């Protein structure tokens, strides 16, 4: 297991390096932030001076080497537009995005697995049919449209919930969170629901399909013949066996929830990383773009690793590579 983890981490370093190179070259090819941000009255000399002051007049390889040297010392550079370290900027926004993503994942899992089980156990009941057709809607409706609809209904028409923004935050273990106050939860409900919708449908469908398949398996019949209670058959024998694909999906989807909460964040004015990266791409704020993508890639790597480890815990037959070699 340790060998497996170490090998995976070494691979990740290579991935991160490649990633930084790609983004660096990509942003360089597009242009530079001075062309976008310079004051319209500025003359040619002002523009040249600003470009030189940011080091953007140097050849690409030199800029990249400077970046690499500093990155190895843990410094990903200062944001051009914010004038503070890019890493600090992203870490400052991260709690908001993580809170939103976790809330959405919680909604998806806590609702999705029971609903999916129900639909799987009673596929022909009206409730089962309703759940399954509802999940099709969750799949097919675009996030931004559902988000707007939620705002129009619950904020504008009914006035029950705020239209956007994050509620007041308080510190939990030094991290600013908003779910500890009622006002914070009110702000969280709509964006979390919106972000959860797709994941919820996915989990419902996976759980339902897995349940129906598992119910036909011999071990379930055997468990029933043994006279186990229905709760134990479903809760232990069925559920544990169908969890592997669900865990994979939750894991992968959690990464994408964090990385792609952008749509929900901008519709609901949620001050997370997604909003930051959009703004940064618009002004070609390279240090922020590079740092953001490096962090997101790291998150994906870590989540995948965690998923692999959870597999082996859920199913003892799964051996992590390295242990069997």
């Amino acid at each position, binding site marked *: 297991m340790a060998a497996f983890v170490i090998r995976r981490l070494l691979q990740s370093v290579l991935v991160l390096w490649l990633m930084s190179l790609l983004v660096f070259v990509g942003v360089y090819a597009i242009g530079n932030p001075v062309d976008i941000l310079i*004051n319209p009255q500025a003359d040619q000399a002002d523009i040249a001076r600003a470009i030189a002051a940011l080091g953007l007049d140097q050849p690409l390889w030199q800029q990249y080497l400077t970046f690499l040297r500093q990155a190895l010392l843990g410094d990903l550079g200062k944001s051009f537009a914010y004038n503070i370290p890019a890493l600090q900027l992203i870490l400052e926004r991260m709690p908001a995005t993580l809170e939103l993503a976790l809330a959405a994942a919680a909604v998806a899992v806590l609702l999705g697995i029971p609903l999916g089980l129900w639909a799987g156990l009673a596929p022909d009941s009206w409730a089962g049919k309703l759940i399954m057709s509802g999940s099709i809607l969750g799949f097919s409706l675009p996030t931004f449209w559902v988000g707007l609809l939620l705002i129009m209904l619950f904020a504008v028409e009914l006035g029950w919930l705020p239209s956007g923004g994050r509620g007041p935050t308080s510190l939990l273990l030094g991290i600013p969170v908003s779910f500890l106050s009622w006002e914070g939860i009110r702000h969280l409900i709509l964006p979390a629901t919106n972000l959860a919708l797709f994941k919820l449908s996915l989990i419902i469908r996976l759980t339902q399909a897995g349940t129906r398949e598992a119910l036909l398996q011999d071990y379930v019949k055997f468990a029933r013949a043994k006279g186990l209670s229905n709760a134990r058959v479903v809760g232990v024998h069925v559920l544990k066996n169908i969890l592997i694909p669900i865990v994979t999906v939750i894991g992968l989807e959690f990464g994408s929830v964090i990385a792609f909460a952008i749509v929900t964040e901008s519709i609901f004015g949620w001050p997370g990383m997604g909003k930051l990266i959009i703004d940064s791409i*618009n002004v070609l704020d390279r240090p922020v773009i590079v740092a953001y993508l490096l962090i997101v890639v790291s998150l994906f790597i870590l989540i995948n690793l965690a998923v692999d480890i959870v597999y082996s815990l859920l199913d003892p037959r799964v051996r992590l590579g390295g242990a069997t070699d």
Partner: protein
Amino acid sequence: MAVRTARFALSCLVCVALSLAGALSAVAAELRIGLAADVTSLDPHFLNVAPNNDAAWHIFDALVHVDANARLIPGLAVSWRAINPTTWEFKLRKGVKFHDGSDFTAEDVIFSLERPATLAASPGPFSGFVKAIVAKKIIDPWTLQLKTAVPYAMLPYDLDSIFIVSKKAAAGASTEDFNSGKAAIGTGPYKLLRFARGDRIELARNDAYWGGKSPWDKVTLRILPADTARIAALLAGDVDAIESIPTADLTRLKANPNFRLEQKVSWRTMLLHMDQYRDHPPHLADKAGKPLAKNPFKDARVRLAISKAINRKAIVERVMEGNAIAAGNLVSPPVFGHVAALKAESYDPQAAKQLLAAAGFPDGFALTLDAPNDRYVNDEQIAQAVAQMLARIGIRIKVETMPASVYFAKARAGDFSFALLGWGSFSGDLALRALVATQNAATGYGAWNWGHYSNPKLDALLEQDFATLNDDKREALACEAATLALKDTPVILLHHQLASWAMKKSLTYAARTDEYTFARDFRPR
């Protein structure tokens, strides 16, 4: 509606200990504004972009301010005059105090004029506004003399862009010190309470403000860049006013009895640049794809033909849904140097065709029109409309649009032969200098003259203009220069857009040509 707002505002109060009565009176004097772009920093000398300046204007003042019509008015300087051709004398306002209670003095001005140059690593530095100053002299605590190397009329204009910070608070301060509020000590109408980056800025009234008391005890600037989020927040009563309303929503908001709309012609002019320097500009050929013998844009008749082929009224009414006015000037009507006699070119496709034929292009030609798609109001649609109109006189146009981040780098590299640009200037001569004066890196002329139009007479007139320290004489020169240049159709002028604000029915706003959103200009009715 009112009940809902009160309920929301109440639940917003973090301090539950406040009595209900106290809470309600606090609600009455709070203003919440939804801003359309992110404020990256509260350091007023770091990045010169409109959203940052907008926030800074709430906290800081400059020596010279501009009014709603983009004309100069006294700020921290009560008056200014040129005592000789290269020396400007500014009389400072007496009795002004910074937010920390300390006195505003000439020392703070000197410090503020010197600070931008120390923040060189910025993609949009302020240093260009002070580079003309070669020497500064304090005559007495309320009199300051600034020397320039050559006679320079634009110094008061430049000083509108330099915010005055407190020397005591800002000496050695970093951007973070401004963001945290430690160094954000100004003389402006509001004091900074809290800056939550990417989310909101909270301000409290400065009771000692020299420019009169603001009606709002507390102001919250919410950052809501997504149009839908901003409008939803207004409709839901989560904010009291918003800026920058998309064209499609203007009609809807106008019809809604709960809201008021304030509009004013913006200083931004939409125009098209044409390549007038290369013999074979990129993406320009005859309709069969064969290169043309000469560059048609070098012929003033072709440029005029294009101008005549554009139906500005249709663009204003259809594309902009009435939220623009057709342009015959580089600057919009209230701005210094606008020539009322210069009218928008009238739509005349017949005359345009004749002009094209006379210039030797009876069959027209084919080219690409480039435009950004996320920078100006309806930029992509404007380009499409122009393409269709030019098709009627035989000029076949392919429209290519791209995000501003890609667009401006390509434009600067000379990749375009026909391209859309939006331009805001608070004086006509500045616009002429940037857009149509002959490109010259040494003098700074023609920095945005993508088409390389060149007219030595215009350059000479502009040089004379910028050396004329008397405003009336200078405006006459600026108007003469504009008339001279525009006769040649150096660029195709389209329209001036209207800036819009939407607010609750109970508020009014003194709409501004410079598009800034200032809390102090909102008033309860």
